[in-house]
């Protein structure tokens, strides 16, 4: 090879480098006259879009009488199973086999015993609770088992206390979905003041747990001298059971939770509402309110003063904590990652739930349905790590009790934001009197935590614990809000909460506020850059080889 040619080729390298630098392709590009077009990215998978209401059990909605138990109307899309309500009122030992067969409760889940004070209701109550894992892992494949969606496509690992059940934990043979008894939150438990209550924790889970009866009148030790406070140092290990004994003298809205590795187990979902109802004659209370929400068989005292009663249970989930149980099957690994690797002081709350669901699922089973001139009792627990600032649109409610203790009349404040500390309970009286103070009139009024994170689902708005207080004429026969079809179709979507879809991708504004598309790649630039770079590499190799040969 001639010397001249080598010099030419060597000089060509800086020239090519200059070209390559000039035409370097870019990952993002400044716009010229024409920005990219709007992309209408609707999912190809129709399974990502859900029906707002599947209307599975319309027969569960009307008021009905089952085994002599009067069950109030529940107009929502997903009303509570009235057979569960009947069994929760009479006990699994007193309902008919036909009723029990309509539930997933075991025969010994709730045994109602003697009427000690001869006032027409049972006073010895045996309650059995199991510990259930939802959205757990399986060594048999890359899937979750006993799934429970808190919102469209959202399946964080959860633990709950559940009434003792029987049979299959899956809904059916062809699915991984948990049976409907197994859900968040842990059920509200209702007993009557003065009842002798025996709560058996049957630890069906693979880690130790306890039940601590927070705020419920209970002796520190059982009659046998065993632990009765559910503290960390008295864990109930897997496969074992323990009976907690109480005879509460004081009525009110209380709380229960696991007190083992409390910060983590509490946030995994092992907490629920515990209500002690006033002692009244012939007072058969609804022992389990599965999924919290509307109380379809309120107690005698509540019925005297109120038209309806709802239990509202607020909880939050840290997705990093929830993922731990989905990442391994060896209990030792899970225990290590949860107790020692995970650091609660560096945690976040990502999901916010009202009665086990985030918006829009709250519309299915946590709607408060009201008529004009009602007085509705709301019992509220904050089981989050952070405070709740509960706000009702269109209403000012009145707080009647804090932590299960009635407020004196002069201290029953009427407000539109209620600050609820973690583990705190408040009782509210919500009047639908259209007088400009209690209520501004009929509507589909939102109610939600006004702390900004509370209405988001992993940062996606609207989500979290947003729910509605709906006046009857404004909901359809399936319990869903009228006049909102387009909006509901948008948010009942896995893509919406997967953040794959523009927020205002509908109607006239779809073009104006839809997804901005991408620039088409500039292939001329890419080809020139590629060729120039390739040529530089080739020339370097060639020159090196020639140089070496000459040296020899």
């Amino acid at each position, binding site marked *: 090879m001639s010397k001249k040619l080598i010099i030419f080729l060597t000089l060509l390298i800086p020239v090519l480098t200059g070209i390559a630098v000039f035409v370097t392709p870019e990952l993002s590009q400044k716009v010229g006259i024409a920005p990219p077009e709007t992309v209408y990215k609707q999912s190809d998978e129709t399974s990502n879009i859900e029906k707002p209401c599947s209307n599975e059990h319309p027969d569960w909605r009307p008021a009905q009488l089952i085994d002599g138990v009067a069950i109030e109307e529940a107009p929502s899309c997903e009303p509570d199973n009235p057979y569960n309500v009947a069994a929760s009122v009479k006990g699994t030992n007193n309902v008919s086999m036909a009723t029990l067969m309509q539930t997933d409760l075991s025969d010994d889940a709730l045994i109602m015993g003697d009427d000690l004070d001869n006032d027409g209701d049972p006073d010895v109550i045996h309650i059995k609770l199991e510990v259930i894992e939802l959205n757990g892992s399986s060594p048999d494949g890359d899937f979750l*088992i006993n799934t429970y969606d808190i919102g469209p496509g959202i399946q964080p690992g959860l633990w709950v206390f559940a009434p003792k059940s029987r049979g*299959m*934990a899956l809904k059916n043979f062809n699915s991984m979905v948990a049976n409907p008894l197994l859900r968040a939150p842990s059920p509200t438990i209702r007993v009557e003041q003065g009842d002798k209550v025996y709560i058996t924790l049957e630890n069906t889970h693979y880690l130790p747990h306890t039940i601590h009866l927070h705020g419920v009148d209970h002796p520190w030790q059982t009659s046998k001298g065993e632990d009765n406070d559910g503290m960390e140092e008295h864990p109930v290990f*897997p496969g074992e059971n323990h009976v907690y004994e109480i005879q509460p003298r004081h009525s009110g809205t209380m709380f229960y939770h696991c007190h083992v590795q409390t910060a983590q187990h509490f946030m995994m979902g092992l907490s629920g509402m515990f209500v002690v109802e006033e002692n009244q004659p012939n007072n058969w209370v609804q022992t389990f309110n599965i999924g919290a929400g509307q109380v379809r068989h309120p107690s005698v005292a509540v019925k005297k003063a109120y038209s309806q009663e709802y239990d509202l249970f607020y909880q939050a989930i840290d997705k990093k904590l929830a993922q731990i149980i989905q990442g391994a099957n060896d209990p030792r690994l899970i225990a290590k990652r949860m107790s020692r690797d995970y650091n609660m002081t560096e945690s976040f709350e990502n999901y916010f739930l009202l009665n086990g669901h985030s918006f829009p699922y709250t519309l299915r089973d946590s709607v408060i349905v009201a008529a004009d001139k009602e007085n509705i009792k709301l019992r509220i627990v904050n089981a989050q790590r952070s405070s709740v600032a509960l706000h009702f649109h269109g209403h000012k409610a009145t707080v009647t009790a804090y932590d299960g203790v009635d407020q004196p009349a002069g201290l029953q404040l009427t407000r539109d934001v209620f600050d609820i500390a973690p583990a705190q309970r408040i009782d509210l009286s919500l009047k639908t009197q259209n007088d400009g103070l209690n209520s501004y009139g009929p509507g589909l009024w939102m109610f939600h935590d006004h702390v900004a994170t509370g209405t988001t689902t992993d940062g996606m708005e609207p989500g979290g614990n947003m729910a509605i207080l709906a006046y009857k004429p404004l909901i359809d026969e399936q319990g869903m809000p009228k006049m909102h079809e387009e909006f509901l179709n948008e948010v009942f979507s896995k893509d919406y909460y997967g953040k794959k879809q523009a927020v205002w991708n509908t109607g006239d504004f779809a073009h104006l506020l839809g997804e901005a598309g991408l620039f088409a790649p500039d292939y001329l630039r890419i080809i020139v850059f590629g060729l120039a770079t390739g040529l530089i590499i080739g020339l370097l190799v060639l020159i090196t080889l020639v140089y070496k040969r000459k040296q020899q």
Partner: protein
Amino acid sequence: MKRLLMLSLLMLGVIGPASAAMSHDGMLMDEKGMIMNANSDRLPADCPKISENVDINIHAGRKHALKFNGKMFAFDQQEWNVKPCAKINITFTNDDQIRHQLMIHGLPGYLYPQGMFHLELYGAGELKASLIVPSTKKTYLVHCELTQHMEKGMKAQLKVDGGDGDLPSIPGISKPVKADVYEVDWSQMTVAVLLICVLLGAAVPLFVMRNK
């Protein structure tokens, strides 16, 4: 399943208080537990007669997981072998204070509704029930279906005529499909062994050249 149970109950006209034991061909249920789809006399279509009578004791509980690492619940055995058309008389014992089940899946639906044989004990105790297996060479899944019980070790297999392979994640028998990941115990010694081997490997060509 519920509809089926209801139908059988309605047919028998025995709807009454739940505490009374309910019995029927397909199921027996009381406050201690339940038996579903037991079969001690109906032969599968492919079996002219019962080939053998096998008595099997199966224990369930936490203590049976002690012989494995990284499990919490288990049966006392993980595999049973029977001949085609065998009649298996199971005594199922729950050694824990919680609920456990013994479910066998994949059986013929005309004898075992939904292909399932199911024993359940609500706490410590014992149940006895029989089933007759068909002649097909097959491996049946045996497990407890409570949330996370199979996943944490309560899984076994019943092999008829030697079975048609092993099911995954049976403790002590087969590998999981989705395996847990554990760290390897690297110490100074391990690092030293590695470095020495690297040096030795590098020395091999030098040694060979010198001797040529």
